[in-house]
């Protein structure tokens, strides 16, 4: 399985305490910035295991205990890195309250990121909700490389859709039609595939969205890379907790064999 890691940016061995530089609101989300100038430069799609350096624990049900996985959403030239947070439980709650100057324990960058576009290949970057996080850094790389692409994002409503600004000026769909197309982002993808059936897809978002993307791409016969999520204890392949079944019935570990996987590997995204 080390094969999967060929060429991936390596993580420092052991977690590092980074300083929070900013904690910004981004629609319904928070953007947590840390100074990681001394750390390895991540590839788009990689993630980190993070925890508050102090007071990690003592929340609801005496949690959190384990670190939490977050996509690296952006990395600036000055070494600042951003995580995009949706407050869904005790871990994200604690992370959302971190202030400038406080410490963040970070292990990473981890996992297998998106592959670069093949020469001449046009990409559709498709995301939903907080799943847009790894697509921001991916888009940064595509822009830097001058790679042709279209960005399609889906959100619940206007407040959540404010986060679309993270990726400049993408095409947006909202469930309630308050911004952009009313409906699913996968409808935008299907329209795009009509226009350009030779697209390759890079996607991240909630499982139903990813499953729809997978099914659409399979039908259209276009290659898709999906950034998966799974509950993780370690993030570096040691606990075997983050498995997802492959098409052949064996399990892949999302943290080392993913989080970005070829859609073909999966029977479906659950």
């Amino acid at each position, binding site marked *: 399985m080390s094969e999967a890691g060929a060429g*991936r940016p390596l*993580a*420092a061995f*052991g977690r590092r305490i980074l300083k929070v530089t900013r904690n910004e609101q981004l629609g319904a989300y928070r953007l947590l910035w840390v*100074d990681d100038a001394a*750390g390895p430069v991540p590839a788009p799609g990689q993630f980190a295991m993070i925890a508050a350096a102090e007071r990690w624990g003592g929340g609801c049900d005496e*949690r959190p205990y*384990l670190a939490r996985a977050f996509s690296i959403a952006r990395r600036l030239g000055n070494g600042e890195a951003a995580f995009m947070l949706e407050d869904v439980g005790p871990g994200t709650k604690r992370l959302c309250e971190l202030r400038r100057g406080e410490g963040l324990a970070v292990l990473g960058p981890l996992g297998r990121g998106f592959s670069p576009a093949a020469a001449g290949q046009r990409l559709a970057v498709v995301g939903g909700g907080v799943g847009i996080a790894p697509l921001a850094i991916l888009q940064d790389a595509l822009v830097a490389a001058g790679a042709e692409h279209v960005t399609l994002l889906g959100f619940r409503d206007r407040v959540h859709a404010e986060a679309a600004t993270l990726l400049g000026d993408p095409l947006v769909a909202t469930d309630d039609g308050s911004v952009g197309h009313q409906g699913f982002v996968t409808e935008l993808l299907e329209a795009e595939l009509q226009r350009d059936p030779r697209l390759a897809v890079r996607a991240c978002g909630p499982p139903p969205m990813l499953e729809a993307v997978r099914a659409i791409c399979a039908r259209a016969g276009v290659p898709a890379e999906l950034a998966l999520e799974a509950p993780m204890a370690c993030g570096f*392949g040691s606990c075997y907790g983050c498995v997802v079944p492959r098409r052949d019935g064996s399990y892949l570990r999302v943290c080392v064999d993913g989080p970005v996987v070829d859609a073909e590997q999966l029977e479906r995204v659950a």
Partner: protein
Amino acid sequence: MSVDFCGLTLAHPILNGSGTFDALAAETVFGAELHKRFPFSAYVSKTITLQPRLGNPPPRLWEAASGLINSIGLPNRGLVGYMEHDLPRLAQLPVPLITNVMGADAEELRELVAACDAQQAIAAIELNVSCPNVKTGLDIGSDPSQLEAVCLAVRAATSKPLIVKLTPNTADVAACAAAAESGGADAVSLINTLRATALHPRTRARWLGGGNGGLSGPAIRVVALAQVAAVAARVGIPVIGMGGVQSSEHARDLLDVGASLVAVGSESFRDPGVAGRIAAELTGAPSAPLRASPGR
């Protein structure tokens, strides 16, 4: 502070708990730094079984108060896959290799142990006796007399150091340790995880794909300390203590109640660098501090 353990000379008393550190995956993730700063003085493999196992269906993890329940289900390539695929690479690690094996009965265990005995790259063998007996449903290791019989059966199959990893889910862990000793074990290790479960917050069915799982982490530390103390007071063979160790103070506690070595398990999930820091603190070596830049 090098430690003699059953004839092996180890640089310090800190190992990994079986199944809590995958050195091969870690090579992929951390690269050469892993070998340069390898945190354990011996490396314990995850549990190997005769046949390959896929492990349990997900979800496999539940976060508990100060701990986690795992129901991984011992995924592994099986004995043949281990020998062919993993062993050659594990043999390259900078420390001695301890292979952990589990079988459903004495005969399976004997076969696994004999196969390990034949491998020069394997320095010692750990028996995981937390496997449920097919007839009783209880862990083989939970009944002293059954455990002694198993140990006697496998002892003959190897001259390598034989470590018996006791189950904590028993009335009298010291009696189990004594049974392992009289069955010929060279050492015992404990504690394995405590049987535990959780319900799906919405459906109310069992959360874990495997139904039950095992609790590890800080929550079990004081239980581990009591069990290790009871065992060390009872047997003459060396004891490897583990359970919830997060710091050198916790390791020191286990050593002070009589453990010869200490294993770090779940805490490596939170920070794979922690075992190295603990070892450095125990041996007085300059420890790699927590810092923002990767250490190279």
